């Protein structure tokens, strides 16, 4: 089938959306951005393909009446697929780390170091299934973060026990993760899907399903040809994407159109990404009328939250929920990312509670965004929030509050897939380029 792909190479994450020729979204994929843009693009694209396969598999299953709760079933398949993926990368990481240990840094303690790695990775591996159990909360979706935080924790403890300097191990890890991350993903989907399906089926012995038929359905979904008809790239790194110029659109246009595709009533779009904040006004057809961006300064964007999370030794996903527990909001004036840690320590030293400070930080981010929105012309009904930070419930709460206070009763759209908006817009441009023949314009 003909597929249209949008790639959003962001400053912190790279997103891909795969679309069919009727503008239906087949799959979405995301990975953390990294120095190798080609790999980032390839990984995101592959993730979108995985998602697409799941969609196709699900469509296949829908014809099959054997499963009572298809949603639950598919969730499990997806989770176990991720688990398989995680284990595959973990093995790669282990092996890479081992290679670095041989480098001579450990001064004859290589053996101990190897054994330590053995223990660390063994434990991470053992913990992995729990990470992907149904309903489990993860710190992040990216291998780098997941493996990294566990390595820090377990590694620190184990190193202490063994009497090895943890800094050295950490350095080995730092070196290895870069290599692992920048290796193009292994192409073997069939195996991982198969194993995932088997795990699920094994877990649901009561399921009255024909295993063989199920596998056949899966194979069919995997065999379906996906034809990359047209790819459009956007995002912070778009100029470096290995695409010809006519395959590239500005982020502003993509976010505007993407938001329009998600909610056709959208007139004002706010996008808070890793490094920038944009406010975009669009007309009823999703065409950009006006926009404002933060300039020069990365204060109060997604990376800011990243620094805070690092400082607090928490996962990005955990910040929002903790802030929601606040009983008051500490006033934070500066959202300078670089000094985020210092500001935080300052407040902690003054005896403020973590959750209250976090609430203040979230409010500060949103206040900044409100300023940029105001600069672009304010909020018109409907208002759609896009970009990764929209996933953060505390930020969303502050935003809603401030929007209501300042602009009254407007519809506020926050899609769970908000982070894919740019890629969705790009995919839509790709589809239009072929279907409407709009590609030639430049």
């Amino acid at each position, binding site marked *: 089938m003909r597929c249209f792909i949008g790639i959003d190479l962001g400053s912190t994450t790279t997103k891909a959306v795969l679309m069919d020729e009727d503008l239906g979204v087949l799959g979405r994929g995301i990975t953390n951005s990294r120095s190798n843009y080609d790999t980032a693009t390839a990984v995101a694209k592959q993730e979108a393909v995985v998602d697409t396969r799941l969609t196709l598999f699900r469509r296949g299953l829908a014809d099959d009446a054997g499963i009572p709760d298809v949603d639950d079933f598919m969730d499990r398949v997806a989770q176990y697929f991720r688990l398989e993926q995680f284990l595959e990368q973990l093995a790669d990481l282990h092996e890479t780390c081992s290679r670095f240990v041989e480098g001579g840094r450990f001064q004859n303690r290589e053996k101990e170091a190897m054994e330590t790695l053995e223990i660390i990775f063994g434990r991470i591996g053992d913990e992995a299934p729990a990470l992907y159990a149904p309903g489990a909360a993860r710190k992040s979706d990216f291998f780098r973060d997941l493996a990294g935080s566990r390595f820090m924790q377990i590694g620190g403890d184990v190193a202490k026990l063994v009497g090895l300097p943890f800094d050295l191990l950490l350095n080995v890890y730092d070196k290895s993760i870069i290599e692992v991350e920048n290796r193009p993903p292994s192409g073997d989907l069939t195996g991982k899907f198969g194993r995932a399906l088997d795990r699920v089926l094994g877990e649901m012995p009561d399921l009255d399903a024909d295993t063989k038929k199920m596998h056949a359905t899966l194979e069919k979904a995997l065999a379906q040809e996906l034809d990359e008809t047209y790819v459009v790239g*956007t995002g912070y790194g778009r100029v470096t994407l290995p695409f010809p*110029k*006519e395959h*590239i*659109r*500005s982020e*502003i*246009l993509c976010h*505007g*159109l993407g938001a329009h595709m998600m909610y056709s009533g959208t007139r004002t779009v706010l996008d808070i990404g890793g490094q920038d904040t944009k406010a975009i006004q669009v*007309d*009823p*057809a*999703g*065409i*950009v*009328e*006006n*926009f*404002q961006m933060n*300039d*020069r300064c990365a204060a109060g964007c997604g990376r800011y939250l990243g620094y805070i999370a690092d400082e607090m030794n928490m996962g990005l996903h955990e910040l929002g929920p903790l802030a929601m527990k606040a009983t008051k909001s500490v006033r934070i004036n500066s959202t300078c990312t670089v000094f985020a840690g210092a500001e935080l320590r300052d407040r902690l030293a003054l005896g403020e509670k973590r959750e209250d400070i976090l609430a203040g930080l979230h409010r500060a981010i949103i206040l900044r965004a409100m300023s940029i929105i105001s*600069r672009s*012309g304010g909020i018109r009904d409907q208002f759609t929030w896009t970009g990764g930070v929209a996933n953060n419930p505390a930020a969303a709460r502050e935003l809603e509050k401030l929007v209501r206070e300042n602009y009254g009763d407007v519809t506020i759209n926050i899609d769970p897939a908000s982070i894919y908006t740019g890629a969705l817009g790009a995919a839509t*441009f790709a589809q*239009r*380029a072929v279907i*409407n023949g*709009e*590609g030639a*314009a*430049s």
Partner: protein
Amino acid sequence: MTDTTSAEETVKEPSMITQKHMIAANYDRLTSAPESGTKVVSTYVPGNLNELIMCFDMVSNLPEINAINNAMRKKSGGYITEAEKQGHSEDVCTYVKADIGLMSKGAIAPNGKPIPPPDLLLLSYTGCFTFMKWFELLRDEFGCETVMLHIPYEGDGIVTEHMRDYVVKQLKDEVIPALERVSGVKFDIDRLREYLRKSAAAEDDLVWVLQSAKNKPSPIDAFFGGVFYIGPAFTAFRGTDEAIEYYVQLRAEVEDRLARGAGPITPEGEMGPEKYRLVVEGTPNWTSFREFWKMFYDEGAVVVASTYTKVGGMYDFGFRHDPDRPLESLADYCLGCYTNRNLVQRVEILENYLEEYEADGLLINSIKSCNSFSAGQLLMMREVETRTGKPAAFIETDLVDPRYFSASNVRNRMESYFQMIEQKRRGGGSATVAA
């Protein structure tokens, strides 16, 4: 308004070469003042009293022009750093710092010779607070005589009789006596009348040239090209025969382009087809002048009217220097410069330009340095947008500080802006212009 002595080959029209010679001659006159015994007066462009200064056989040194010149020759960055090293804040107007830095590095003019210290600082305080501080700083440096001409601001958008009287009285009782004292020349009002008559003649042609942009395609770029066109009329040449001749020559060139249906001349030759007509508010960026201009002409964008080209007088709204009311007309000139207009008037002027010149939109180049121009521009932008229904865009750069010109940032905004105009034209048909 200066020569671009850049290393790159630049396409020049004959009138530009004429102007280049004029400017060079003036710098020569300035740097040879100590030998020739000519007295030097430093003064500003907006509200300058060139005709009056000429009555005393003095030569003027225009610090703003020096700053621009140095920016175009990529020297301002170093001067600014020098001034900051001496304790000047990062936050203040970079014209001032470029000037201070130039002084401390020998005050070398483009002709390679030192600019002599001024004999008089004529502080025409027109529409900018920083002017006052700037000359206080120079006075501190040179210890020379300073005379202040305070031009009241058009806070209510009008020039009242008592404002004019105040200025005329200062001219009579402060400025002219100071000029007489320093130059040793007695004031002759008839001489002033004669210069004013010449000014008015040149001003007529300047207005014709600027208004030629109403044609489609426009034969001139009224911002990037415009800064050259206004040069003689805004600086040390107003009131001279050379200026009259320059404008005659310029007018002939523009007439010729008009007859041929040609667009403006850019540094790379004739511009391609006119795709966008813009009005620009704000001062150009001088450190990346050509790079900035290129972003326009590469996209087929031509500026049909700009406010910057009105800082030395709003001639297109009818003002002329008037030999029959010599001091009064000098006062009116100072009071009426663009920078001395209040924001309400500035919005009206922009609105008028957008309509009269049938422009597609407004672009504001907001200058980090310049509170006088920049404070309030975002409101002006919105106001103009609502009144005209035409899209506007806003970029931030600086005058002469290369650190504050981010080409990629500006380009990003310009690209999106042109796409916006394009989309508007297509009436919402599709949004697929490559970004």
